[in-house]
């Protein structure tokens, strides 16, 4: 211990303190501050660069998912439109079919009434012809056969029976 204390030199201590404190102050101004500042800004730069890269990636991801969403929407819309078109087509086909049926039915009806009226007209004509015919027959009979009473009677009866068949 005494040897250690003897080794202590005031002069050396003085110089050491002077040089060392001077070195600290000089280095602080000219070295440590610029070095640490530069390193800090560099690290800050790296950090912000990493952060912005991360942000860009996220944005891209968002964009991508947006695109996909849009695409899916478009697809759904297309599907919907197709479906609507199909439905419309079916409806139109059904409508036209119904219309055609109704038209057909109407035409048949018309034909039927036309046929009926034709038939009625034909009937009426027939009736008038029959009546005139019968009148003519009656005339002839009256003219020819008034002598032959019996046979005449038979003939009239037979003729009337024939006319009833109509």
């Amino acid at each position, binding site marked *: 211990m005494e040897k*250690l204390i*003897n*080794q*202590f*030199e*005031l*002069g*050396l*201590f*003085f*110089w*050491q*303190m002077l*040089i*060392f*404190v*001077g*070195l*600290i102050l*000089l*280095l*602080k101004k*000219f*070295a*440590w*501050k*610029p*070095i*640490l500042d*530069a*390193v800090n*800004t*560099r690290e800050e*730069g790296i950090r912000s660069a990493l952060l912005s890269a991360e942000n860009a990636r996220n944005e891209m991801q968002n964009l991508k998912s947006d695109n996909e969403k849009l695409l899916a929407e478009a697809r759904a819309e297309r599907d919907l439109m197709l479906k609507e078109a199909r439905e419309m087509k079916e409806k139109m086909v059904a409508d036209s079919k119904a219309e055609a049926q109704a038209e057909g039915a109407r035409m048949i009806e018309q034909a039927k009434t036309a046929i009926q009226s034709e038939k009625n007209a034909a009937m009426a004509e027939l009736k008038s012809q029959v009546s005139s015919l019968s009148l003519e027959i009656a005339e002839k009979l009256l003219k020819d056969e008034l002598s032959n009473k019996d046979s005449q009677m038979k003939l009239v009866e037979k003729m009337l029976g024939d006319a009833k068949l109509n």
Partner: protein
Amino acid sequence: MVISNKPLRFILAAFVMCLPLLNFANPTADSTVVATETAQHEAAAGHKEGHAEPTDLKSQINAFKKHHVLDAHDFTLFSDNSTGYHFGFPLPVILLDNGLQVFSSSKFNHGESVAESNGNYYKINHHDGKIYKTDAAGTITEDEKTGHPTNVRPIDFSITKNVFVILIVAFLIFLLFKGLASSYQKNGSIAKGPGRIFEPLVLYVRDEIAIPNIGEKHYKKYMSYLLTIFFFVLFLNIVGLTPLGINVTGNITITAALAMLTFLITNLSANKNYWGHIFWMPGVPKPMRVILAPIELLGVFIKPFSLMIRLFANIFAGHIVLMSIIGLMFIFKSWIGSSLSFGLAFVLSLLEILVAFLQAYIFTMLSALYFGAANEEHHHEEAHH
């Protein structure tokens, strides 16, 4: 190789174990030669010098070790004892004694001559390497009991070897980190040049030492000190491992100065909570607080003291052990022993490099820990326990 690692290690261990036997047996012839040499040297040198110059190999090595770990007034890279040739350069001596005495240390002639300045005579004592005021003949009287010189010591503000090395290293650190700082501006926030090697260390000090120990909120104001002390200690530790013969961080004065700065910064920047924990520990019974207060107060001084001793002891011991093993090479004087101690010295040097980093880390880390304790806030308490 068919031989596995284990027997190889065994053989090596056995070798090392046998070494002392071998070397006790061998150099009996050598030591007699050394002894005669010693006698001659003493006859030649003993008269001229006031003290006995160590001359046999072991004590020469010991003296070299002792002188190496001490500060010196000149920078000697190597010297040849037999011719008295020293390769190096003198440093200025500044003494506060009857005014300022400034002269070159070459006047001391490596401790062999008495230096004269304005009518005052000074001499370097060989035992502690310090300058004492003497008479013109350079007599140093020693205390009978302790062996310390009783001569007056002038206040010594010399630029000694350590001061010189600190200046150089400080200059180097300044240039290096100034270069690093300016390279950021020139090169778009990317380090360039030799300083970039140290950028990871700067970041390490910030991210692994300062922020975890002090906290995100307060760490910034301590960064300059922590970074400076880390690189200062690290560089001086590394420089101490070079063969230049420098031992700065293994000097108690240096570590004391560094520890004192940590102590001052800790206590001057401490908040109320820190002092509250020292003098009136919350959360313990009142009588305990009275007992704890002096213990905690003692801790305030023990913490920097341990910092000082830890760094000093690690580096000092490393230098002593390394030099002893290098010295062994010359003592063994056999090709097995010397090469083994060379290998050992090599491995130890690697270990010392680790220690150099480790001690710089520990000093910085503990300083940061103390700063963190001084800045701890109350709500942080719960998180810690």
